Structure formats: C-alpha cells, structure tokens
C-alpha cells in the first residue's frame, strides 16, 4: 500500500529483532514502547503553535502508531514545550486513548472524522482535541497525505474490541522483557509501596491500621457470586457468617451489600447500594441484615448520596462545559469572552460540583469524628459518588491518606477495587457517550482544592495529582482500565494464557537467558490471587518509574510537608475503644442524613427513601422551615456536628478555585516553576554535593593507594528547575500584546 512517497503503511508482519528497537527509534524519531508499531506517517506537516493566529509553526513528520500520534520536528533545535518528564510520551505526543476528537478541515469547512466515516473532501488541516484539554493543530502541505493519515488516526483511536487495546500487546512484550531498555524499569520497584487491595492481606492490614475491631475479611464473593462488581474480599462484621453475606445480596442493587471500608476513632464507614425495591418483602433475613449494617455500633447513619450531590450525568455535563471553556478556545486565550470569564466559569457548574462534594464530605467527616456510630454511604449503584465521598472523607480525616502511599492505597480501595466503572466512565471503548462521566477527575479536583488550602498537610504536590490525572488517559495500567475487579481478573487470566502461548515462538527464534516467564506466577492459589498478582503482566500505574524518571518523581513530593510519624499513626482519637464487640448494644437507632439534618428512621425496612420529598424541599427552600416541618422526627445525635473542627475544615466558595495548573496548562502563558520546586532543587543539590564529597573521598583513597583514577569525571549538578524562565516569557509575550490591544 505504498502510494505517495511520503506516506507508508507499515505491514504488521513478524516482529523485528530486539536489536532493531533502537534502529527503529532512530528511523522514526520516537522512542517506541515494547509492542508499539508505526502504522503510518506523513512528512512535511506543520504543527501550529497558536491555532488560528498561526504565529509560529514547526515542520516535521506526523506519525501514527498503535499507541500514539507523534510529531517529530525536522529541526531538533527548536525549543520544545515543557516536557512533562514522561518516559512514555514526548512533549509532542498524544496517546491514542487520550484523543477526544479528530477533526479534519480546509479553510472553509471542518468535519469530525470517526472510525467509520469517510472524508468527502481533501483536508488540509488536522485538529486533534485531546482529553487532557490539549488542542493539536497540524497543517499539511500536500493534501494527499492528509487524506490518508487522518482516517488512520481516527480509526486507530477507536478500539474494535477491548482486547484490541494496546496495553495487552505492551504487557505481553513487557512480560517477556524483550527490550533490555525496559527490563530495569520494573526492578526500580515502587517508591511508595501501595496496598493494592487485590489480596486478602491488604484488607487485613487496613483493618489493623485503622484499629477496627469486630470485622473480618470474607471470601463470600470469591467467585463474584454475591456481587459481580465488587472485590473478591468483603469486610463484614465478625459475627456475620458467609452464608448470611450471600443471602444479604438479595436486598441490594447489584448485590452490593453493606461492607466495611474504613474506621475512624470509634466509628466505621460502610458503603452499600440502594435497597432493592422489593427488599422489605423478604423479612426473614432482616436481623442478619441489621447485624451487617450496624457493625458493632448501636447507631447507624445512612447517608443518601443522591441527596444534594450532582449525578454522574450532571458532572459530565459540567465537565464538558468546562472543557469547552478551557480547551476549545485555548487557541485564542485573550478573547472578548474573557470579560465574562468568571460568570462563564460559574455557568459550567464544575466548581459548584466541587463545592458540593467537599461539603458533603465535610458533613460525613464531622459525623464520623468524635462519635461512635456506623456511617453508611448509600448510592443507587454505589460505584460513583460513593467512591468520591468515601475517599474525600478519608483524605479529610486520615493523615495517612495524605501521604503518597496512603493516597494510592485509597484510590485502590475506594475506586479500583470497589468497582468504579473506569472503562465506562472514561468511555474507553467509545461505543456510547451516555455512560461517560468525569467522576474520578472531579475527585482529583476536590483533592487539589484541599491541597491548595492545606499544602502543609499533604505529602504530594500538584504535579503528582496531574501525573495521576494524565495516567488515566494513557491506557497502560490495569488500575484505570476496567469496570470492576472481575473484569480485570478475567482479562489477566486470558492474558496469562496468551503470554504462555506466545512465548513459545519467541524462545524458538532467539534463545533468552532468563526463560522463566512471569505468567506462571499468575495462578489461582487457594481460589484467589495471592500477592503474586503484583507480578501479573498488566502494569500498575503506581509503578511510577514506568512513566517517569526519578528526577521527575522528586517533584511529586511536597517540600512543605513535614512527615510527622505521630500524625501518621494517629487516625482520629481512639478514645472510644469499643473492645466489647461481643454483644450488640441495644436499642439500635437508624438515622438518615438528609440536607444536613439527621432524621430518625423509625425502622430500617421498608426503607422510606427520602423522607423529605424533593417537591416539598423545593417549596420550602429555607432550612428553618424544613426543620420545623421535621421537628417531631428530628433527634439530634450529639452536640458536635461541627465541620469547623475537622482537621481540614470545609472550604467556602471564595476559596474554591479553578485548577489552572491542570485545565489551563496548555495555552502556556504563565509558565513558572511552582515555588516548591525551588526548595526541592536546593535539597537535591545538597544531595549532589554530598555524593560528590563521597566521590572525592573515594578518589583520594584510591589516589593514596597509587591507583590510576582517570575518566572519573563528575557530572554537573542538577540545574535549578527555574532555568526555563526566559523562553517561557518570550513566547508568552506575543499573546500579551494581543491582550493589550483589546
């Protein structure tokens, strides 16, 4: 299929020899990943640095592989945009999975190109809208090339089937360690060992870390019989038998039974889905259900997350509006629309979503702190806002969750293993837009707001949050790839078989010294994956070394954070040591948190969902009248339902800001180093000096020993982070001028 000389379609024939990886890199100009193949390329492409204004353009070649779209400039001296430090993606690359829309255009018309659509005109321009709000703009000198590569890109970013995703080819290659360059990346290990909650042990550790008593890890869901969307491991009251756990699933949507997630002070945090509509008819298991719900406490608060919080659809709507505001107009950053910037921003309602989530999390947090009760988060399917609120609560109350290790473990526990539908919510397969929702991104935004206000209390930085965010758009990691643990387990199992099958030809063609394939460790041991699952072929996002060199990972750590061992150990006040968990204290009371008010629920089932009907609340907006209305039912819980006393008190509206470092980072105007980085640079320089001192000492020793010591040249110290200042200012200047002319 060799048509115009500059456009080639590479046949996906037999894999090249390992040594050819480097050769390949040199030819294509991009460092390819194991398993990555170039599918097509076009030369003489101009990348426009300022869309529409066309201030500047770089000529180069546009590549499409099975993983990315890359742009390789001809002149290498051209200063590149600020690299994100990624090992995987260059500054001019975009992963296929990060492409939101492909638009072809001429001077007069534009068209969104999809995998199936055909171009009816000769495009001259290519616009790639990225999920991370970037907008790439290319111009073609020869239209023939454009009409070939544009459909190719559009097709490539539409996976035909889940197994088509690049990650599987990548993992197979990775697990075979074909390319020596990638061999060491695994062994760097994780800088911050994360509890993956993929094993029994991690849950046990979590139970003992939080000091929860009276709970056990149940294997009732080992074969995903209780709930197909839950983890294999469910933490339930010690008294409750597996049989009862299995029975309880009938009461709940998707069988997502109430299960323990976290313990603070004397309280436990549970999550569950809504009751099945016919639940109350099955009265026989009710007392068991109560045991499951109450845990060791006599008070139970059910927090209905449908109340006051935006729905996933509303979140997505807000996110799309935000994207439109920040991305699509980013090419001309100083438009007249700027004048109404704040109002428009408010109109997106994104910040309102952030505020409501933080508010709800504060409410729940204040319930949990200094009380002895069980708080159960309830959501229709318990897979979106429950993840969000539950993890925010823990970030607010638990200092451990503000460390990198703790935060990563938190995401594993509350999102990945709890079955947040990453695949659907990020619309990985691009079948339908209906399920898409930026719930996880909203969570990261909420954490950023907290980080902004309490920088001293977090171990990580904005850079770290951005790295997580960007990782969600690169489909290389098992964490953000699947809808639930079951999906992942199946994928990994079949992949393990794949690896075993495919290893054979390789070993035939070139004998390898390390011939023990890793896949053999992926076996079912005693019915569930043991810790060895870590070695499974699908990489984890928390292996940061896969993505970032250590120099960049330094920036994840906040210089302001003072790791206080005492703080870490303490998770709330353990004053209420409910050692006597043997007997359930009576009487038990069920409360319902709605609109910031606790209402007594006369009985658990039949569950009267929201006792203050929505209609009614719309009629009487003010809290006062609401209170009067509910007076007879309202029984206060304890004197301190005061969010102000939280370690991270709620942030009022003026404090909630747009995450500019994230949403506005592409039209790079304000390109200055975060102030923290300076301190990090200073610290690393001290380390450099210390190292150098050691080297000098060594050298002296060898010198006295009469040995030759040549060629032991020292490298330059790491340059301070701020050195890119001048370039940034130069480029940003042109835009400033246009602003001035407004």
């Amino acid at each position, binding site marked *: 299929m060799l048509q115009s000389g500059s456009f080639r379609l590479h046949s996906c024939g037999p894999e090249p020899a390992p040594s050819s990886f480097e050769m390949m890199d040199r030819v294509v100009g991009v460092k390819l990943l194991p398993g990555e193949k170039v599918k097509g390329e076009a030369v003489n492409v101009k990348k426009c640095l300022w869309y529409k204004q066309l201030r500047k353009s770089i000529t180069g070649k546009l590549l499409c592989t099975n993983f990315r779209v890359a742009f390789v400039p001809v002149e290498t001296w051209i200063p590149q945009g600020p690299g994100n430090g990624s090992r995987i993606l260059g500054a001019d690359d975009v992963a296929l999975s990060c492409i939101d829309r492909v638009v072809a255009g001429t001077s007069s018309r534009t068209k969104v190109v999809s995998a199936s659509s055909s171009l009816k005109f000769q495009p001259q321009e290519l616009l790639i809208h990225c999920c991370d709000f970037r907008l790439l703009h290319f111009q073609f000198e020869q239209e023939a090339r454009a009409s070939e590569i544009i459909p190719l890109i559009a097709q490539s970013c539409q996976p035909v089937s889940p197994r088509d995703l690049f990650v599987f080819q990548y993992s197979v290659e990775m697990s075979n360690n074909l390319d020596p360059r990638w061999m060491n990346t695994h062994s760097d290990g994780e800088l911050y060992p994360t509890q993956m909650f993929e094993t029994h042990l991690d849950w046990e550790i979590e139970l003992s870390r939080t000091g929860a008593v009276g709970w056990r890890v149940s294997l009732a869901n080992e074969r995903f019989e209780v709930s197909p969307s839950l983890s294999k491991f469910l933490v339930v009251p010690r008294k409750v038998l597996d049989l009862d756990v299995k029975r309880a699933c009938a009461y709940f949507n998707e069988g997502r039974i109430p299960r323990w997630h976290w313990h603070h002070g004397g309280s436990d945090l549970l999550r569950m889905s809504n009751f099945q509509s016919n639940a109350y008819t099955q009265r026989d298991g009710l007392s068991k259900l109560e045991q499951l719900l109450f845990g060791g406490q006599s008070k139970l608060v059910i927090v209905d997350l449908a109340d006051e919080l935006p729905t996933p659809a509303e979140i997505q709507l807000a996110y799309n509006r935000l994207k439109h505001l920040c991305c699509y107009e980013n090419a001309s950053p100083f438009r007249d629309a*700027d004048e*109404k910037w704040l109002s428009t921003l408010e109109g997106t309602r994104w910040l309102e979503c952030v505020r409501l989530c933080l508010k709800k999390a504060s409410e729940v947090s204040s319930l949990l702190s200094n009380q002895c009760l069980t708080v159960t988060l309830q959501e229709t399917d318990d897979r979106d806002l429950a993840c969000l609120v539950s993890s925010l609560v823990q970030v607010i109350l638990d200092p451990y969750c503000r460390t990198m290790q703790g935060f990563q473990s938190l995401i594993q526990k509350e999102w990945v293993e709890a079955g947040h539908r990453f695949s659907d919510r990020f619309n990985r397969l691009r079948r339908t837009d209906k399920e898409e929702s930026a719930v996880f991104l909203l969570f990261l935004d909420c954490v950023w707001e907290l980080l902004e206000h309490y920088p001293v209390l977090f171990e990580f930085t904005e850079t770290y949050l951005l790295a997580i965010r960007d990782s969600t758009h690169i489909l290389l990691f098992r964490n953000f790839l699947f809808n639930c643990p079951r999906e992942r387990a199946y994928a990994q199992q079949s992949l393990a078989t794949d690896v075993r099958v495919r290893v054979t030809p390789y070993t035939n063609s070139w004998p390898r010294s390390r011939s023990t394939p890793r896949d053999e460790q992926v076996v079912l041991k005693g019915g569930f994956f043991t810790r060895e699952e870590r070695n499974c072929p699908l990489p984890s996002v928390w292996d940061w070394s896969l993505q970032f060199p250590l120099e960049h990972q330094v920036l994840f750590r906040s210089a302001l954070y003072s790791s206080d061992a005492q703080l870490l150990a303490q998770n709330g006040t353990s004053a209420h040591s409910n050692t006597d968990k043997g007997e359930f204290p009576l009487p038990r009371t069920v409360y319902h948190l709605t609109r910031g008010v606790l209402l007594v629920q006369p009985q658990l089932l039949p569950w009267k969902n929201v006792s203050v009907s929505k209609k009614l609340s719309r009629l009487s907006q003010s809290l006062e009248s609401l209170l009067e209305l509910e007076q007879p039912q309202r029984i206060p819980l304890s004197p301190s339902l005061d969010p102000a006393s939280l370690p991270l008190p709620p942030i009022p509206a003026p404090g909630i800001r747009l995450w500019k470092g994230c949403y*506005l980072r592409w039209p790079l105007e304000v390109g200055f180093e975060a102030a923290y980085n300076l301190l990090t640079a*200073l610290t690393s320089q001290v380390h450099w000096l210390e190292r150098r001192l050691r080297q000098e000492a060594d050298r002296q020793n060898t010198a006295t020993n009469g040995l030759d010591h040549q060629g032991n040249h020292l490298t330059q110290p790491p340059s*301070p982070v701020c050195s890119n200042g001048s370039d940034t200012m130069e480029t940003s200047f042109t835009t400033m*001028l246009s602003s001035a002319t407004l």
Partner: protein
Amino acid sequence: MDSLPAKKAPRLPAAAASANGDSPESPAGSHVEWCKQLIAATISTQLSTAAVPDTISKDYRVFRRPDLRVLRDGNKLAQMEEAPLFPGEAIKAIAKDVTYICPFIGAISGTLTVTEYKLYFKSVERDPPFTLDVPLGVVNRIEKIAGIQENSCGLEIVCKDMRNLRFAYKQEEHGKLEIFENLTQFAFPVSKNLPLFAVKYKENYPVQGWKVYDPVAEYKRQGLPNESWTISKINSNYELCDTYPSVVVVPTSVKDDDLCKVAAFRTRGRIPVLSWIHPESQATITRCSQPMVGPNDKRCKEDEKYLQTIMDANAQSHKLIIFDARQSSVADANKAKGGGYESETAYSNAELVFLEIHNIHVMRESLRKLKDMVYPVIDEAKWLSNIDSTHWLEYIRILLAGAVRIADKIESAKTSVVVHCSDGWDRTSQLTALTMLILDSYYRTIKGFEVLIEKEWLSFGHRFAVRIGHGDENHADADRSPIFLQFIDCVWQMTKQFPAAFEFNELFLLTILDHLYSCLFGTFLYNCEQQRVKEEVQTKTVSLWSYINSQLEEFTNPFYVNYENHVLYPVASLRHLELWVNYYVRWNPRMRPQVPIHQNCKELLTIRAELQKKVEELQREVSNMAVSSSSERASPTHSVSPVQTTV
C-alpha cells in the same frame, strides 16, 4: 439518648472562629434585620450582666497610668479585657457590657475601649478570648442607631478595609454615651482639628525608614545623570510644580525658562520628567499631566520641542509613544475643560495611544460593589458571577494590560514613552510604577519596592490624604478612590504569576494596605512632598518602612530567586487573574487559613539558611579536598546555591 438544643451552639475559637454553612450567619444587610439583631443583642446583654458602677468609666476620662491601676484593682473583668497600648497611646473611654454583633459568630458581650489610635473590643466570654483591634484610621463612617427599643442603642462603623462593625449597648448608662463622641473625635481628627495619631506615636525602631528613599541615589542607580538627562534643581522650592518632588530629572539641553513655559502648558505644572531609564537602550519612561490644549487646540512650541528632546535622548528609536491612560472619549471631553491630549500633527514623530482606563469614580463604585459581595455574607452559589458583576478584576486586567504595553514599547521597541492621564497622579502613578516593576528587578526587592512607592507615589504627589480621606469625616467625598489599593492588587497578581520573582511576601502587601489607612505611620499622610516637608513628617512621625525593615524576615518570600535583568510580563487575562481573597474576604473567619502558612514560610527560611550553610560547608570541603589531592583541579567553580541563582 443525647439531646441538645435545636440550633447548634457555635463553640468556636473567637479570633479564628469559623462559622459553618448553616450556623447563625445572619443574612444581614437590610435595616430590618439589623434592628432585629440589635434588639436581640440588647436583651441578651440585659439578661446577662449586672449593673456596673458608673464611677469606673468616669475615672477613665483621666487617661493616666495610675488610674489604670485603680481600675485593675477595682474590676477583674476589666483587667482581663484591657487594651494593650502603643507608646504614646492613651485610653479615651471604656464601656463595659457592649455587645459586638459579629456577622459570623453572633452577638458577643465584652468591653469596648477607645483610644486615640484604635477601637479595642475584648470578650472573655469565649475561649480563647475574642478580640477586635481596629485602628480608627480605617473608619469611614460612624452611625448611631437609636430608639429601636428602649434603652438600647446601636453603633454601626463602616470601615475602609472591607468590613463593617456593629455594636449594641444600653443607652441609659452615662459612660457609654462618650464612646460615640470619642469615636468620632479620634476617628476624624482632621475634621475636629486634632492632630493625627501618627505624631503621637513614639515607638523606636532600630532601622530608620525615612532614609529608605534618596532620590539622587535612586537616579544614580539608574545611571543618571548622563549626557542627555540631568538632575535639575528647578523645583527645589516647589515653585515650578507644587505637587512634584524637589528633585526631578529633565533633559540636559532644556533651559529653565523653557521648562517654565512647558509647565504653564501642562495641568498643574506637572511637566514631563523622567521616571525610569533603560540601562541599555536608554529608552525612558517620562510622566506628566495632560497638555492644556483646550477647545481651540492650543499649541505650545516649547512643549513640542521638549517632547522632541525626550525622543532624541534615545538614539535607538525615532518615535515617541504617548500613553494617555484615559478613555479617548473622556480625553476629548477634557478638551472642553481646557485639557486634552497631544495631537499627532503638532507633535511630529509622536504616537498617541489611549489605554482606556476608567476614572477614580468608577473604581470607587466597583470596590463598593465588591464590598457588598464579600462582607458579611457570601452567596456561595453565585460567588463568581457576583465578582464578575463588580468589574473589579476587569479593571485590574486593563491596568496590567496597559502596563504590559508600555513595558513592551520600552523593552522590545526600545522606544521612549510618555505616560499621562489628566493630572498625572492617579492612573499615571499606577502605570509607571507597574511598568517599572515589570522592567526592573530592583523594584521587586523589599527595599526596591519601598523606593518605588516613595518615588512614583509619594514624591510625585498621589493625593493620599484626599484619596483615602485620612481623619476626614466627609465619607461621601467624591475625591476618595481606591487607586493605591488597585495598584497593590496588581502587584499581588504579579506575585501570584511569578511566585519566586518577588522578595516580599503577601504579608508585606497586606501590611502596607493596613497602614495605608491606620494613620500610625507618617508614610502615607498628606498629598505631596511639599506638604510633608511643611508638616515635618520625617521628624514628627515614624515611617512605615522603619517598622517593616526592622523585621524583614516577617516579610520575606522564602522562594525568592533574583530574576535579575528579567522583564516579567504578567498575563493580563481574566482567566489568569484572581480575586485577592486573603485581602478582600479576610474578615470572614472561614477564609482564614487554618494552617499558619506565614509561620511555615518563616520556618522554610530557616531551613533554607541551614541548607545554604551546608552547601557552603560542603563546597569548601570539596574544594579543600580538590586542592589537597592536587591530582586534579576540580574545584567547584559552578555556584550551586540556588538562592543566589540568577535567571
């Protein structure tokens, strides 16, 4: 089962108190609501307090220390609620059982003290005690609200620093009547023909702040005088222009006679004089007032020649850009009043640019609206659009964009510029000072910023006394306007965009603004240099810079890196500007940072110092070793201390 009152009691630490969303944050604002509060407050006072002997408060009118001791013995509560005093400060009146109606945490009962300098309210009702310490200089207006209910009396104090205070007390007690009189007297000393407190303030600081600015030294730093520019003595007695400094820099070749003629053609004699000169290109910023063109398009040969000379002094460009800060329509309208602008026909080679900045009245109105939005109650759901509707940030943007344009002409086009508005003391000061901040890294240091304020604002006659209304009870004066506040806001925006480029921190800017109103220091008093000399400000009062420079570590930015010779163009786009919440919304206890960032920064400074010391030690050690090993000359020539990193 526990039980508690229906409404949860806000048990909050007073100063750092945070009222939560649904707590008794009153939807204040309306008069009715205020009256309700007042009644409620008075009732609660009556219930909670016993009668207090009149004598004590009467004693207090004699404000001498021994009396204080009598009082201490007499009343324990008063002792606890007594106000700390500055040297030279005396108590004028004390009233007990006054209720402060806090919009955030409700009514608090305590003792109100009025001194010559401040209003001090303290309540030991709460733990920790609640205190309110407000310099009387910030008071804009005091209103007495009486007769709502028998025996009750209210006091509303509207402040210049984005807050209002409300007190309630029982009327029949004689002592309390004096509170109002004392307040009005010492809040508005100028109107009452009393001296400002600054002249009584007798603190001794180790550093003499009045020495911060020496015009000749500053011009020397810029490389002046040179062959084209000279430091002139023509205004040494403020005869040429009474609102200009005594030391001005003018072109060498222009004769004094011609200068007088130029002065006659410019409003208030504010002739074009040099503010700043580019160290390399010799492009200059000159500032002046509008030419008095008038409706008949009057011309002045000397003025035209004068501008030509300014242009000629810069060999790099054959153009001169005149930036008129005003809106072109307003500039036109000014012609009718005898003012106007330079026509490009009369001034050959000159290009006139209007920066379209609104006048002082628009800015005052914008700030008034902003205050309504931020104090006391914030509409959470409409916060952003409410801020938008005040246009405050939009005006900040226009200012910054103007400064960026001017700076670009100097830096990129190497062209000299002339900046003026009508009188050349409001918008002109804002623009020249911001431009200099963009162009010259010296002004981004603490000392340099002080010099910048002294030079562009104080010496060039920004009318602080009129714009702020120091000690003046005429709160409706149309000449008041937050011009200087706007400038500081712009500086803050720049510090946000370039967090490591400024030596000072946010507290420094906040402190400047606080003492802009407080009248504790002499720095911002009076309208121009001539007045300050006449009033002997330097000998009679203390400089704000004495206070600041005596404790520099408080005001230093730990992340400061010297961006020497770097031009820092701020992004003048609304999406990169932010409302300065820590200033405008700081009275809202919920906005107060829970983690003391300031303390943290200070700690960081010490850590930095330690690290720096370590680096130096290691460096020395390494070089010693390199020398002793003598086999290789590997002494570290590369400086590794980023603290001195010059970008």
